[in-house]
Structure formats: structure tokens, C-alpha cells
């Protein structure tokens, strides 16, 4: 009798080892009742209320309790994941789902701290627009460790009421600065948006754009970036406070724009203008615009750490975030306005039309320019700080 | 000459001191006696100008033909000695004494000289650099008398200054105080509850 019990338990253990759910239904079953901790940047009230809606939907339709952990910076969660790894915590981690892109993803992926290959298995992956850079982040392959959530593009914001003609290229920007000295600026790197602004200038000014697809080579770095530094040397004296200091965040610049201290602000969300106008943080004559050649664009993702506790729940949430219903609501400028990563052509007709209809009202659309390789961020920041980081 | 006219001190409409009248001439010691809580210390605090806000007072204080009760403490030129020696702990003995010297003494050497002389007078020569916290109770008491008198006050108040000292010390200290006071020839008001403290041939008022 005892031998039988032993044999049976061994068989049961053997089965449970192989019982990894690969199909969607069993994943949903597993997810039911789980609590998913979604660590996301909490600085935008529009994003926060959108996520509150998502939490409601998850509870109602999937039985998953979604708890949003609002962070000031994704690095707060990254460091936690790294601490857990160094303490040997291989499961039951504190972060189930993380809103991330770029440098942070790079860091975690290289350290092997992310769950791989799950994003492509999700049912809603078939709707994703493959023309967008959804399989790579900062020119690095994702290996299915990230599920795309939305699309971002660097845009400039200005107030049309001031009657000025918005610059549509780098030389025009310089001329604009000459015509309106002390009224322009950009966020100080290493602020994410500030660095992106510098990258944007680099993309349009460099004589060797193909070098940006690869990591920066110390031998050619100077050559590739020379036009950028020349440009900035001319631009800075014309900036706000003579280029001796820079606003710390794009949010601060929005305020300065609203108060007329600056004529332009920058943002990564093209619909940010609509949000701000809605919340009466900007006058209704504000517009988002960009260079005619195109503006830097990227996709932002959600990722699941390898040691996440509620892995099934996290995947179900990620799938929902990619669903047409959630993406349509997200793209609505009155709610958030974040551009979708879905291809409306792959959706059934009414949904596809609905998706297309969600366009930011106060925006002049411009082409997407792909982002440089992830390593350029660090290199550019370092060089910028070295040249302009002190008075 | 110190004159108190019709002093009445009340708190919460209960009068502590009622229509007190007296005159003390130079070199004379007036003793105020009474049980604890009779208002003796409160009365002294009125004379010195530090009466707490909860008391109301009527009456006049005259010293050497000048009205003093309308002046702030620092202009009354009346010295006071409390039960505790109240030497300033952050200053040494010499600095404690130097603090009292009037502005008329200009130079540092002169002030130093005054201090040394006073200390010698009290058989405390060489104590100038000592830390007050290291002194015995009797030494501290003597220095606080010296300090009060170095300021050349026009009158001196003593608020039970002997009660913290033992019998033998008390006697010595008493003699020391009367001797110092005699040298200065100023009116003195003494508050005590011990009959032995009363100097010979002085006025006594019992509250």
C-alpha cells in the first residue's frame, strides 16, 4: 500500500512538471483569482485613470485583480528586480508586469531577468502592426520578452495664438531661436525626453545616418556627432537663460509654455496636447507639430520579469492591453490619446474604423523616424553633460 | 533710601500682599518674615521688576528719590540674590564677576583688577579661572554675592540666600554678607523664614 502511494505521488509530481499551459484557455483559467502588480510610471493623471479602467475590466471579465503600482521612475522597479535576483529570489517576485522601454529593457534583458518568448504567443498579437518596430526595442531584438503597448513619437508643442510660424526643420528651429531669443529650451539630459530631443537633432543633422543603427564606435563618434555639437553651440546662446540652465522636466516646460515664458515644449505623446487642453492646463490654441522630415518614434512595451509571481495573470493583462477594445479606448484623445500599435486593417471593419477615427485633434502628423541603437543614449548623454552640463 | 508705598499684589482677586508700606535707609537691613506661600518671593520679584503676568499690582517703589517701579529691570539698578547661586555655567568665575562690573570701568586691566580684588576680599584669591560647576556650595554662594555687589547696585534683595547652606557655612556666609553690605552702605531687603537669619538691629516685617 505504501509503495502504491509513493508511486502515485511520483506520477503526480511527474505530471505537474509537464503541466505547463501553452494554450490560451488554461492560461486564463490559471489567471483567474490572481493578483497582478503592474508597475507603471504614475506621473500622468490621464494614464492613471486609463489604468483604473483596465483594472475594472480585468476584474469583471477575467477575474484578475490588477493593482497598479505608481512609480516616479521605472528605475525604481528595475532596481528592485535586480535586488531580488542578487538575493536569489527566483520566483514570487514583487513585480508581475512592468511598463518599460529602451535602456531599462536592455539592462534587464542582458541580465536575463525577463521571461522570454511569451509575447508572440498571445492571441492579440495577430492584430499588431508589424510595420512598426514591435520586434525590437532601441534596435535590439525583443525575443518575445516584451508585448507592445503603444506608440510614442517625439513632438514639439507650441501655442498657435502667438502667431508664430512653427519651425519644421533644424535650420528653421535655429532661425526661430534667433527671432525669439530666450524663448526656447529643452529638458536637460539625462531626462528621457531631453535625450530624445538631442537624438532627434542628431538623426536629422548627422552626415552618417547608417552609423546610428549600430552601437557608437569610439573611433567614429566624433565624426558622426560633430554636426550636432556645432548646431547646439550655435543654438544654446539663443535659448532660455542663455542656455546656462535647462528646465528639469517636460512637464515644467508645459507650464512655462502655458505661462508664455517659453514658446515651445516637448512631449513623447502626440495626444498630450489634447489632454492638457482638456484639463485646462494649456490654452485651446495649443498645437503639436514636428519636423517635416519626421520625428523620432518608438514603441513602448510591457514586460514580465522571470521571477514574477502571477505570470499567467500578467500575460492575460498584457493581452488585454493589446486588445482592440483597450487600444481604441487608449487612443481616444479624451482619455489618453496614446497612439495604437495595432494595424486597423487586421481588425474587423467596425473596430478598424473606430481605431482610425481616434486621432489627436490638435496635431500635425509627421513621419516616423526609427530610433538609434540603445547604446547611443548613454553616449550622447555623457557627451552632452561633458560639454554643457555645467555653467 | 528704599521706599515701598501701598503695595498690593493680587492674583485671581485673592490678595497676597495687602497695602505694604516701609522704608529702608542706607546700610539698614529689613527682614520680611512669613510662612511659605505668603508671597514674599512674589513681592521681591515685583521690586526687581520680574513679576509674572498672572499677578496684578498697585503701589509705588522709590529708591533714592527716583521712582523705579515704572522702569524695566535693567534700569532699576537693584541687585538680587536667589536661593540658588545661579552662576552662569558657560562662564568661568572671573567672567561671571566681570559681567557685573559697571560700564564706567573702561579698560580690561581695570576690570580684571576689580575682579581680583573682590575675590581676595572674599578669601577666594586665584579662583578667577575656575569653572563654577566645580565649586562647593559655599564658594558659589560667596561668588554670587560678590557678583551682585560688583554691579554697585543702589539696593540689594536677598531671597532666602542662606537656606541651601549647612549651619556652620550659614553663619560664616551671613557674616560675610553683612560685612560686604556694610562696605557698600545700601538698603537691603531680606526674605527668610528662619529667625536666625535676621541681623541684629534691623527692621522686621511679618507677612
Amino acid at each position: 500500500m505504501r509503495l502504491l502511494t509513493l508511486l502515485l505521488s511520483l506520477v503526480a509530481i511527474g505530471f505537474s512538471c509537464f503541466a505547463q499551459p501553452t494554450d490560451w484557455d488554461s492560461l486564463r483559467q490559471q489567471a483567474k483569482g490572481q493578483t497582478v502588480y503592474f508597475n507603471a510610471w504614475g506621473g500622468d493623471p490621464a494614464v492613471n485613470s486609463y489604468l483604473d479602467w483596465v483594472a475594472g475590466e480585468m476584474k469583471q471579465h477575467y477575474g484578475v485583480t490588477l493593482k497598479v503600482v505608481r512609480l516616479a521612475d521605472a528605475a525604481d522597479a528595475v532596481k528592485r528586480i535586480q535586488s531580488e535576483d542578487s538575493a536569489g529570489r527566483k520566483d514570487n517576485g514583487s513585480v508581475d508586469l512592468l511598463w518599460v522601454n529602451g535602456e531599462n529593457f536592455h539592462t534587464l534583458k542582458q541580465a536575463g531577468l525577463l521571461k522570454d518568448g511569451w509575447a508572440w504567443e498571445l492571441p492579440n498579437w495577430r492584430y499588431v502592426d508589424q510595420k512598426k518596430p514591435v520586434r525590437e526595442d532601441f534596435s535590439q531584438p525583443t525575443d518575445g520578452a516584451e508585448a507592445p503597448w503603444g506608440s510614442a513619437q517625439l513632438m514639439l508643442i507650441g501655442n498657435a495664438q502667438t502667431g508664430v510660424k512653427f519651425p519644421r526643420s533644424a535650420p528653421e528651429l535655429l532661425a526661430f531661436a534667433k527671432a525669439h531669443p530666450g524663448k526656447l529650451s529643452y529638458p536637460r539630459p539625462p531626462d528621457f525626453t531631453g535625450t530624445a530631443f538631442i537624438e532627434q537633432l542628431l538623426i536629422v543633422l548627422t552626415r552618417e545616418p547608417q552609423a546610428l543603427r549600430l552601437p557608437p564606435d569610439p573611433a567614429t563618434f566624433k565624426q558622426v556627432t560633430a554636426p550636432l555639437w556645432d548646431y547646439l553651440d550655435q543654438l544654446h546662446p539663443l535659448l532660455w537663460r542663455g542656455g546656462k540652465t535647462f528646465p528639469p522636466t517636460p512637464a515644467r516646460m508645459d507650464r512655462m509654455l502655458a505661462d508664455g515664458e517659453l514658446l515651445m515644449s516637448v512631449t513623447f505623446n502626440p495626444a498630450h496636447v489634447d489632454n492638457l487642453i482638456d484639463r485646462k492646463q494649456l490654452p485651446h490654441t495649443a498645437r503639436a507639430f514636428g519636423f517635416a522630415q519626421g520625428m523620432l518614434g518608438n514603441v513602448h512595451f510591457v514586460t514580465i520579469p522571470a521571477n514574477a509571481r502571477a505570470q499567467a495573470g500578467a500575460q492575460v493583462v498584457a493581452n488585454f492591453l493589446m486588445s482592440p477594445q483597450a487600444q481604441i479606448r487608449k487612443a481616444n484623445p479624451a482619455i489618453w490619446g496614446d497612439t495604437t500599435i495595432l494595424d486597423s486593417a487586421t481588425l474587423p471593419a467596425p473596430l478598424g474604423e473606430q481605431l482610425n477615427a481616434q486621432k489627436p485633434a490638435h496635431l500635425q502628423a509627421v513621419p516616423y523616424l526609427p530610433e538609434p541603437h540603445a547604446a547611443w543614449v548613454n553616449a550622447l548623454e555623457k557627451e552632452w553633460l561633458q560639454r554643457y552640463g555645467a555653467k | 533710601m528704599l521706599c515701598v508705598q501701598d503695595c498690593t499684589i493680587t492674583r485671581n482677586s485673592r490678595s497676597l500682599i495687602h497695602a505694604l508700606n516701609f522704608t529702608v535707609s542706607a546700610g539698614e537691613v529689613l527682614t520680611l518674615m512669613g510662612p511659605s506661600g505668603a508671597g514674599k518671593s512674589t513681592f521681591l520679584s515685583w521690586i526687581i521688576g520680574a513679576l509674572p503676568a498672572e499677578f496684578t499690582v498697585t503701589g509705588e517703589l522709590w529708591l533714592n528719590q527716583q521712582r523705579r517701579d515704572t522702569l524695566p529691570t535693567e534700569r532699576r539698578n537693584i541687585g538680587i540674590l536667589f536661593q540658588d547661586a545661579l552662576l552662569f555655567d558657560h562662564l568661568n568665575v572671573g567672567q561671571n564677576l566681570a559681567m557685573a562690573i559697571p560700564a564706567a570701568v573702561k579698560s580690561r586691566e581695570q576690570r580684571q583688577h576689580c575682579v581680583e580684588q573682590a575675590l581676595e576680599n572674599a578669601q577666594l584669591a586665584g579662583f578667577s579661572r575656575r569653572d563654577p560647576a566645580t565649586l562647593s556650595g559655599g564658594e558659589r554662594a560667596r561668588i554670587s554675592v560678590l557678583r551682585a555687589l560688583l554691579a554697585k547696585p543702589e539696593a540689594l534683595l536677598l531671597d532666602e540666600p542662606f537656606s541651601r547652606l549647612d549651619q556652620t557655612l550659614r553663619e560664616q556666609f551671613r557674616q560675610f554678607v553683612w560685612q560686604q553690605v556694610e562696605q557698600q552702605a545700601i538698603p537691603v531687603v531680606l526674605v527668610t523664614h528662619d529667625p536666625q537669619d535676621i541681623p541684629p538691629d534691623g527692621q522686621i516685617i511679618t507677612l
Partner: protein
Amino acid sequence: MSLRFLAWFAVGCVFAPLLPGLLMMAKPALMPEIWQALWADNQWSGALLATLNSTVISVAGSLVLCLVLFCGLWPGARWRRYAAQLPLLLALPHVAFASGFLFLFADNGWLTRLCGISFHLDEYGMGLGILLALKESWFLLWIASTQLNYQTLSQQLTVARSLGYGPLQCRIRVLVPSLLPRLKWALLAVVAYSLSVVDVSIILGPNNPPTLAVLAWQWLNDADPQRVAMGMLTSLLLVGLLGCFIVLGWILWRVFRRAVGRFSGQRHLLNIQPLASSLGLVMTATCIAALAMLVIWSMAEGWFYPAILPDGWAFSGWQAAELSPLGTTLLLALASSFTGLLVIILWLEGGNPRFDLWLALPLFLPALPLVAGQYRMLLILQQDGGWPGVIWSHLLWVVPYMLLVARPAWQQIDPRLVITARTFGWSSWKIVCLVKLPLLARPLLAALAVGFSVSIAQYLPTLYAGAGRFTTVTTQTVALSSGGDPQQQAIQALLQMLLPFIMFIITLQVGRLLGRFRQGLR
């Protein structure tokens, strides 16, 4: 179980993460390439200048303000009236005050709209220094009010006055020398805070380059390990800077002692009470104005330069405000402050005062390495994400502040009272409970209020030890402050202020109640 063992055990439990944190910080100091990278970086010299500037203004300013107000108003009804305002002034968290201050004094701020005056606040850390000077002066005043023995000092003051010295002279020669040593720990905390503050520096401070603390924080948050090491090294250098300030303070104290002992015999009747009253009024007015700014912003819709009042009013922000974090915050703060009280009582009774400086270390070190060390320990013990873990992690910051409030008062207990109690045959425990604690009721209540506020203000410990499970008003505020919505920020700042304000009022009232029936406790 002996009291000493308990004391060391309690303190050991709370301060255990210090050691790994310190080791983590000390490692880069041994690597010469990090020193080289630091030297090569062109930001640190400007950052050092900005840091020194803001710290000197903050410390000197707060001390001067504290002394002027103290000398001008103490004792008497005016002082009591002013001291009654201190809970409001202290309860306003630094970040909230800084936001309000910015709304008031920025280039497009309210004052500029009202009368056209504009200061470039962020040049050289001036605005930061001034704000900290204001806020810390209230802290110093409050510590002073809980430390002083009214009886002895007023008699000493009377003696000095009877020697002919005017009000200001008396106070400088008599009061200040006995006050300053009692403020020693509080001043240390002020210097440490000014050197290491990050969130206020981001709001008000210089930006290009930022202060050393912000620079270190940016580097510590970076993905590049070399930058992280540079951040650790900079934090270590900040501790070194603190050491320099301590030495400087000691020298200045000696100079002051010498000067105070020299008497030229000159007496003058200078009375700074009118100056102190008006200064106090201006300072309180600034605080209330900053608060008013926050209140208006929390309900404003469409407020652009140069309008003096918003275009429209909306309560939607308040209606949508989440109040559930308040409950979590309250529970955490109550648990941390009471546990902290227990720990400091054990340490005050059973511990060695010589080690107090080590216990004050969390005040000077950056939070991130310590928090990472704590998180590691919790992970190993499988206690992350739970209430005990978060409370334990808060204690590392709550206990030092509570200690610095309670230690001076503990040292002032008359040993003869203890000896008398021993002659009754009372055990150590009984003496603590029946003699020492009632005597120190007011300072301990003050310590409780401080510990409560410190717990509320914690962001990184709540986030890490709580593994993101705990949402407090501070985590909300910090997350929102990384964005830009002034309305939301104002609402969160006001919510953040609510709990400490109530706690300070409660402790003040309880203290008053105790003092009403026992004058000796006043």
C-alpha cells in the same frame, strides 16, 4: 532580561542594514578609476558649489532665524502664541512647502503677477537655501521649546537683567549659550538634511548642474554600473562634507564661547522683540501664502500668467482624489512611531550615549543603498511585501529623528530623582515607567510627532520593503510629481499634510494638558 541586552537587541534589529549599506558605499572608494571618472566629470565642481551655497544659507539662516525669534519672543505670552503656531508650520511637508513656494516666487509665479517682482530663485541654490532656512528654523524653534527649563532660565535672565544688561544682551550672553548645546543634534540633522535632500532640490534647486545630492541620485539610478559607483562615491563625499561642517561648527562654537565671556561693561537696551515679532509674522505669512497657493491650485481650472486668480474653479480633482492611501499611511505611521518610541526608550535607558552618532547615520547617508540592503534582508527572510517588513524599514529613519529629539531631554533628568526612587527599592523598569517617562512626557510626545511625520514622508522604503504593495500619500505624491499636473500635485500635497498636522496638534494639546496640572513639567 537585562535592559542593556534588550536595548542593543532592539537597536541591532533596526540598524542591521546599515552595515551592508555602508559596505556597498565604501567599495567604490577603493577603486581609483571611479575617482578618476568623478574628477573627469565636469558637473561635480558646479554641483559642489551649489550644495555648499544652499547648505550654508540653510543652516546659517535657520540658526539665525531661530535665535532671533527666540531671543525676541521668549518667554512670555508672545512666545507661547508663536509656539502654538509651530505645529502648522512643521506639519507642512518639505515637498508641499517647496511646491507652494515655487508657485509663489517662480518667474511666472503669483508674486510676479501681483507686483512684478521676480527673483531667479534657482541661481546658485539660493531659493533652495532660503526655503530650507525657513522650514528648519521652525524645527529648531520647536526643539528649543521642548528642551528648555523655564524656571532656571527665567531666574538667570532676571539676574542678568538686574546687572543692568538690556533684553537682547541678556539673551545673547545667558540664553543662547545654554540653548546652543541643546540644539546640537537638531543642527546636525539640519546640516545632514540640507546636504542630502533630493526632492526639494529637484523642485527649487539649480539644475545645471544640480546639487551633489541630486547628482548622486541621478547616477545611482543609472543603468551604467560605473555611474552607480560614482553615485556611491559622491554620497560618501557628502558624508565627508558633513564632517567638515561639524568641524566648522565646533570651531564657531568655541569662538562664540570666547566672545560671550568677554565683557566690555557696555550695556545697551536694545530690544529686538519688534524685529522678532515682525520676522515671525513674515515667516508665518509665507507659509500660509504657500498653503493658500496649494489650495487654490487644487481647485483651479485654467490659470495662466498673468492672471491673479484662476479662470475657473473645479472640484473634480478633489472628488476624484483617492483617499484610501490615507488609511495605509496612517496605520504605517502610527505603528512606526510607537514602535520607534519603544526602541528609543530602550536605547535611552539601556544603551551607551557614545554610540548615538552611529545611530544618527541614516540621516546623512543616501536612502537608496540602505533601502536596497533592507530589501535584500527582507527577501532572504521572505518578509517582503508585508506590514512588519515595511514598519521595520521605516524605523531606520524614524528612530534617529526621535532619538535626537528625546536624547537631550533624557540627559537633563536630575539623577537625584532616580537615586531617590532606587532607595524605595524600585527596579529599573519601574523607575523608567513611573519616574522618567512622566518627566519626559513633553519631549517624548514631540518625538512621537516627529517620528510620525518622518514615517509619512518615506518613499523608497515603502516602495521597496512593501514590494509595491503599499500605496501611501507620499508614494502617490512622488509619482505624480514626476509629471506636471499642478492641480493633482496640489491636492496630493495637501493630503500629505493632513495627517502630520493632526498629529502635531494632538501631541501639543496632550502636552499642554499635562503641563496644566503639573507646572514642573512645563
